Protein backbone atom coordinates (compact mmCIF):
# COMPACT_ATOMS: atom_id res chain seq x y z
CA UNK A 1 0.00 0.00 0.00
CA UNK A 2 3.05 2.26 0.41
CA UNK A 3 4.20 2.58 -3.22
CA UNK A 4 2.68 5.66 -4.90
CA UNK A 5 0.35 6.09 -1.94
CA UNK A 6 0.88 9.85 -1.97
CA UNK A 7 -0.59 10.31 -5.46
CA UNK A 8 -3.47 7.96 -4.71
CA UNK A 9 -4.26 10.23 -1.76
CA UNK A 10 -4.11 13.31 -4.02
CA UNK A 11 -6.44 11.63 -6.53
CA UNK A 12 -9.12 10.72 -4.00
CA UNK A 13 -8.82 14.09 -2.25
CA UNK A 14 -9.27 15.95 -5.54
CA UNK A 15 -12.33 13.86 -6.48
CA UNK A 16 -14.03 14.34 -3.11
CA UNK A 17 -13.14 18.04 -3.03
CA UNK A 18 -14.84 18.62 -6.39
CA UNK A 19 -17.98 16.77 -5.21
CA UNK A 20 -18.06 18.62 -1.87
CA UNK A 21 -17.51 22.05 -3.44
CA UNK A 22 -20.31 21.36 -5.96
CA UNK A 23 -22.71 20.16 -3.24
CA UNK A 24 -21.97 23.26 -1.11
CA UNK A 25 -22.50 25.49 -4.17
CA UNK A 26 -25.86 23.81 -4.88
CA UNK A 27 -26.92 24.12 -1.22
CA UNK A 28 -26.05 27.84 -1.15
CA UNK A 29 -27.98 28.39 -4.38
CA UNK A 30 -31.00 26.54 -2.93
CA UNK A 31 -30.97 28.82 0.13
CA UNK A 32 -30.62 31.96 -2.00
CA UNK A 33 -33.53 30.87 -4.24
CA UNK A 34 -35.80 30.06 -1.28
CA UNK A 35 -34.99 33.44 0.34
CA UNK A 36 -35.77 35.17 -2.96
CA UNK A 37 -39.05 33.24 -3.32
CA UNK A 38 -40.11 34.27 0.20
CA UNK A 39 -39.19 37.89 -0.56
CA UNK A 40 -41.19 37.94 -3.82
CA UNK A 41 -44.21 36.30 -2.12
CA UNK A 42 -44.10 38.90 0.68
CA UNK A 43 -43.82 41.68 -1.88
CA UNK A 44 -46.83 40.30 -3.74
CA UNK A 45 -48.89 40.04 -0.53
CA UNK A 46 -48.00 43.65 0.33
CA UNK A 47 -49.04 44.76 -3.16
CA UNK A 48 -52.36 42.89 -2.88
CA UNK A 49 -53.03 44.46 0.53
CA UNK A 50 -52.26 47.91 -0.89
CA UNK A 51 -54.58 47.26 -3.85
CA UNK A 52 -57.48 46.29 -1.53
CA UNK A 53 -57.10 49.53 0.43
Amino acid sequence: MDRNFEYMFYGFTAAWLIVIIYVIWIALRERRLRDELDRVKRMLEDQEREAKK
Partner: protein
Amino acid sequence: MRTKLIILLSVLAGGLLAWNLHTIFLKVPDEASQGAVFRVFYFHFPAAVTSFSCFFVAMFSGLVYLRTRNLRYDAAAAAINEVAFTFALITLITGMIWGRIIWGIWWAWDPRITSYFICLLMYFGYFMMRRAIDEPHRRARLSAVLSVLASVDIVIVWKSIEWFRTQHPGPVLEIRGGGGMAPGMEAPLFWNVLAFLMLETALILVRMRQQSIQSEIESLRRYAHAF
Protein backbone atom coordinates in the same frame (compact mmCIF):
# COMPACT_ATOMS: atom_id res chain seq x y z
CA MET B 1 -42.16 12.89 -3.59
CA ARG B 2 -39.12 14.36 -5.34
CA THR B 3 -37.50 15.26 -2.00
CA LYS B 4 -38.01 11.72 -0.70
CA LEU B 5 -36.43 10.32 -3.86
CA ILE B 6 -33.45 12.69 -3.51
CA ILE B 7 -32.93 11.60 0.11
CA LEU B 8 -33.29 7.91 -0.78
CA LEU B 9 -30.80 8.15 -3.68
CA SER B 10 -28.32 10.16 -1.58
CA VAL B 11 -28.45 7.67 1.30
CA LEU B 12 -28.10 4.68 -1.05
CA ALA B 13 -25.22 6.33 -2.94
CA GLY B 14 -23.48 7.32 0.31
CA GLY B 15 -23.82 3.81 1.76
CA LEU B 16 -22.62 2.15 -1.42
CA LEU B 17 -19.66 4.54 -1.74
CA ALA B 18 -18.64 3.89 1.89
CA TRP B 19 -18.83 0.13 1.34
CA ASN B 20 -16.86 0.46 -1.92
CA LEU B 21 -14.15 2.58 -0.29
CA HIS B 22 -13.81 -0.11 2.37
CA THR B 23 -13.38 -2.73 -0.37
CA ILE B 24 -11.02 -0.61 -2.48
CA PHE B 25 -8.69 0.28 0.39
CA LEU B 26 -8.82 -2.84 2.53
CA LYS B 27 -9.73 -5.77 0.29
CA VAL B 28 -8.28 -5.00 -3.16
CA PRO B 29 -4.48 -5.56 -3.36
CA ASP B 30 -2.02 -3.09 -4.94
CA GLU B 31 -1.57 -3.42 -8.68
CA ALA B 32 1.79 -5.12 -9.40
CA SER B 33 3.44 -2.36 -11.47
CA GLN B 34 1.55 0.78 -10.38
CA GLY B 35 1.30 0.29 -6.64
CA ALA B 36 -1.45 2.06 -4.69
CA VAL B 37 -2.14 4.81 -7.25
CA PHE B 38 -4.07 2.43 -9.53
CA ARG B 39 -6.99 2.81 -7.07
CA VAL B 40 -7.63 6.25 -8.59
CA PHE B 41 -9.13 4.25 -11.48
CA TYR B 42 -12.04 3.32 -9.18
CA PHE B 43 -13.13 6.97 -9.29
CA HIS B 44 -11.73 7.93 -12.71
CA PHE B 45 -13.64 5.31 -14.72
CA PRO B 46 -17.07 5.59 -12.99
CA ALA B 47 -16.91 9.39 -13.21
CA ALA B 48 -16.15 9.15 -16.95
CA VAL B 49 -18.84 6.56 -17.75
CA THR B 50 -21.58 8.25 -15.75
CA SER B 51 -20.78 11.77 -16.95
CA PHE B 52 -20.79 10.61 -20.58
CA SER B 53 -24.11 8.82 -20.05
CA CYS B 54 -25.54 12.00 -18.56
CA PHE B 55 -24.25 14.11 -21.46
CA PHE B 56 -26.10 11.77 -23.84
CA VAL B 57 -29.32 11.92 -21.80
CA ALA B 58 -29.03 15.73 -21.85
CA MET B 59 -28.57 15.65 -25.62
CA PHE B 60 -31.78 13.59 -26.02
CA SER B 61 -33.58 16.00 -23.70
CA GLY B 62 -32.40 18.84 -25.94
CA LEU B 63 -33.65 16.98 -29.01
CA VAL B 64 -37.05 16.46 -27.35
CA TYR B 65 -37.12 20.22 -26.73
CA LEU B 66 -36.42 20.88 -30.43
CA ARG B 67 -39.39 18.66 -31.30
CA THR B 68 -41.86 19.80 -28.65
CA ARG B 69 -40.64 23.37 -27.86
CA ASN B 70 -41.36 22.60 -24.21
CA LEU B 71 -38.85 24.52 -22.06
CA ARG B 72 -38.99 21.89 -19.31
CA TYR B 73 -36.82 19.62 -21.47
CA ASP B 74 -34.28 22.39 -21.95
CA ALA B 75 -34.18 22.99 -18.18
CA ALA B 76 -33.67 19.27 -17.60
CA ALA B 77 -30.86 19.18 -20.18
CA ALA B 78 -29.10 22.12 -18.52
CA ALA B 79 -29.36 20.49 -15.06
CA ILE B 80 -28.05 17.17 -16.36
CA ASN B 81 -25.17 18.80 -18.24
CA GLU B 82 -24.12 20.79 -15.19
CA VAL B 83 -23.87 17.69 -12.97
CA ALA B 84 -22.21 15.69 -15.78
CA PHE B 85 -19.63 18.48 -16.25
CA THR B 86 -18.70 18.28 -12.56
CA PHE B 87 -18.07 14.55 -12.83
CA ALA B 88 -16.21 14.97 -16.13
CA LEU B 89 -13.89 17.35 -14.26
CA ILE B 90 -13.26 14.59 -11.70
CA THR B 91 -12.27 12.28 -14.57
CA LEU B 92 -9.81 14.83 -15.96
CA ILE B 93 -8.19 15.73 -12.62
CA THR B 94 -7.86 12.15 -11.35
CA GLY B 95 -6.44 11.14 -14.75
CA MET B 96 -3.83 13.91 -14.56
CA ILE B 97 -2.79 12.86 -11.05
CA TRP B 98 -2.46 9.23 -12.16
CA GLY B 99 -0.49 10.33 -15.26
CA ARG B 100 1.95 12.39 -13.18
CA ILE B 101 3.19 9.33 -11.32
CA ILE B 102 2.82 6.65 -14.03
CA TRP B 103 3.92 8.64 -17.12
CA GLY B 104 6.00 11.22 -15.26
CA ILE B 105 3.98 14.08 -16.81
CA TRP B 106 0.74 15.87 -15.88
CA TRP B 107 -0.52 16.17 -19.42
CA ALA B 108 -0.05 14.66 -22.88
CA TRP B 109 -1.60 16.03 -26.07
CA ASP B 110 -2.67 12.58 -27.25
CA PRO B 111 -5.99 11.97 -29.09
CA ARG B 112 -7.90 10.69 -26.03
CA ILE B 113 -6.88 13.44 -23.63
CA THR B 114 -7.04 16.23 -26.21
CA SER B 115 -10.52 15.23 -27.44
CA TYR B 116 -11.61 15.00 -23.80
CA PHE B 117 -10.27 18.48 -23.14
CA ILE B 118 -12.14 19.79 -26.22
CA CYS B 119 -15.29 18.10 -24.89
CA LEU B 120 -14.98 19.94 -21.56
CA LEU B 121 -14.33 23.23 -23.38
CA MET B 122 -17.50 22.69 -25.46
CA TYR B 123 -19.61 22.16 -22.35
CA PHE B 124 -17.94 25.14 -20.67
CA GLY B 125 -18.98 27.14 -23.75
CA TYR B 126 -22.48 25.68 -23.39
CA PHE B 127 -22.83 27.18 -19.90
CA MET B 128 -21.30 30.51 -20.96
CA MET B 129 -23.73 30.68 -23.89
CA ARG B 130 -26.72 29.98 -21.62
CA ARG B 131 -25.68 32.85 -19.37
CA ALA B 132 -25.29 35.18 -22.34
CA ILE B 133 -28.73 34.62 -23.94
CA ASP B 134 -31.85 35.90 -22.17
CA GLU B 135 -34.57 34.84 -24.61
CA PRO B 136 -35.55 31.33 -23.34
CA HIS B 137 -36.44 29.67 -26.66
CA ARG B 138 -33.38 30.99 -28.49
CA ARG B 139 -31.20 29.85 -25.57
CA ALA B 140 -32.85 26.39 -25.56
CA ARG B 141 -32.51 25.97 -29.34
CA LEU B 142 -28.80 26.88 -29.43
CA SER B 143 -28.12 24.80 -26.31
CA ALA B 144 -29.68 21.73 -27.91
CA VAL B 145 -27.61 22.19 -31.08
CA LEU B 146 -24.39 22.62 -29.07
CA SER B 147 -25.28 19.55 -27.01
CA VAL B 148 -25.59 17.47 -30.20
CA LEU B 149 -22.21 18.76 -31.48
CA ALA B 150 -20.54 18.00 -28.14
CA SER B 151 -22.01 14.48 -28.22
CA VAL B 152 -20.15 13.81 -31.47
CA ASP B 153 -16.93 14.65 -29.61
CA ILE B 154 -17.91 12.24 -26.83
CA VAL B 155 -18.02 9.41 -29.39
CA ILE B 156 -14.54 10.47 -30.59
CA VAL B 157 -13.28 10.44 -26.97
CA TRP B 158 -14.83 7.01 -26.40
CA LYS B 159 -13.40 5.40 -29.54
CA SER B 160 -10.06 7.30 -29.66
CA ILE B 161 -8.16 4.56 -27.82
CA GLU B 162 -9.24 2.10 -30.55
CA TRP B 163 -8.78 4.43 -33.53
CA PHE B 164 -5.38 5.92 -32.62
CA ARG B 165 -2.19 4.99 -30.84
CA THR B 166 -2.45 6.94 -27.62
CA GLN B 167 -0.45 7.68 -24.50
CA HIS B 168 -3.66 6.90 -22.63
CA PRO B 169 -3.99 3.16 -21.87
CA GLY B 170 -6.06 1.07 -24.27
CA PRO B 171 -9.22 -0.77 -23.19
CA VAL B 172 -8.74 -2.45 -19.82
CA LEU B 173 -12.08 -4.12 -19.16
CA GLU B 174 -13.06 -7.36 -20.88
CA ILE B 175 -16.38 -5.90 -22.04
CA ARG B 176 -14.37 -3.54 -24.29
CA GLY B 177 -11.97 -6.18 -25.50
CA GLY B 178 -9.26 -5.46 -22.94
CA GLY B 179 -7.29 -7.97 -20.92
CA GLY B 180 -9.55 -7.55 -17.93
CA MET B 181 -8.70 -7.10 -14.26
CA ALA B 182 -7.78 -9.70 -11.67
CA PRO B 183 -10.68 -11.50 -9.95
CA GLY B 184 -12.18 -9.33 -7.24
CA MET B 185 -10.70 -6.10 -8.64
CA GLU B 186 -13.38 -5.46 -11.27
CA ALA B 187 -16.56 -5.73 -9.16
CA PRO B 188 -15.93 -2.59 -7.01
CA LEU B 189 -15.52 -0.63 -10.25
CA PHE B 190 -19.06 -1.45 -11.40
CA TRP B 191 -20.49 -0.89 -7.91
CA ASN B 192 -18.90 2.56 -8.00
CA VAL B 193 -20.54 3.22 -11.39
CA LEU B 194 -23.90 2.47 -9.75
CA ALA B 195 -23.08 4.68 -6.73
CA PHE B 196 -22.01 7.57 -8.97
CA LEU B 197 -25.16 7.18 -11.07
CA MET B 198 -27.35 7.42 -7.98
CA LEU B 199 -25.40 10.42 -6.66
CA GLU B 200 -25.63 12.20 -10.01
CA THR B 201 -29.36 11.48 -10.30
CA ALA B 202 -29.90 12.95 -6.81
CA LEU B 203 -27.91 16.07 -7.74
CA ILE B 204 -29.79 16.41 -11.05
CA LEU B 205 -33.13 16.21 -9.20
CA VAL B 206 -31.97 18.94 -6.80
CA ARG B 207 -30.93 21.16 -9.73
CA MET B 208 -34.28 20.55 -11.46
CA ARG B 209 -36.12 21.48 -8.25
CA GLN B 210 -34.08 24.69 -8.11
CA GLN B 211 -35.05 25.48 -11.68
CA SER B 212 -38.74 25.02 -10.73
CA ILE B 213 -38.24 27.52 -7.87
CA GLN B 214 -36.54 29.92 -10.29
CA SER B 215 -39.49 29.66 -12.71
CA GLU B 216 -41.93 30.24 -9.84
CA ILE B 217 -39.99 33.37 -8.82
CA GLU B 218 -40.04 34.67 -12.40
CA SER B 219 -43.79 34.05 -12.84
CA LEU B 220 -44.56 35.73 -9.47
CA ARG B 221 -42.43 38.70 -10.52
CA ARG B 222 -44.36 38.98 -13.78
CA TYR B 223 -47.62 38.83 -11.80
CA ALA B 224 -46.34 41.52 -9.40
CA HIS B 225 -45.42 43.80 -12.30
CA ALA B 226 -48.94 43.36 -13.72
CA PHE B 227 -50.40 45.18 -10.69
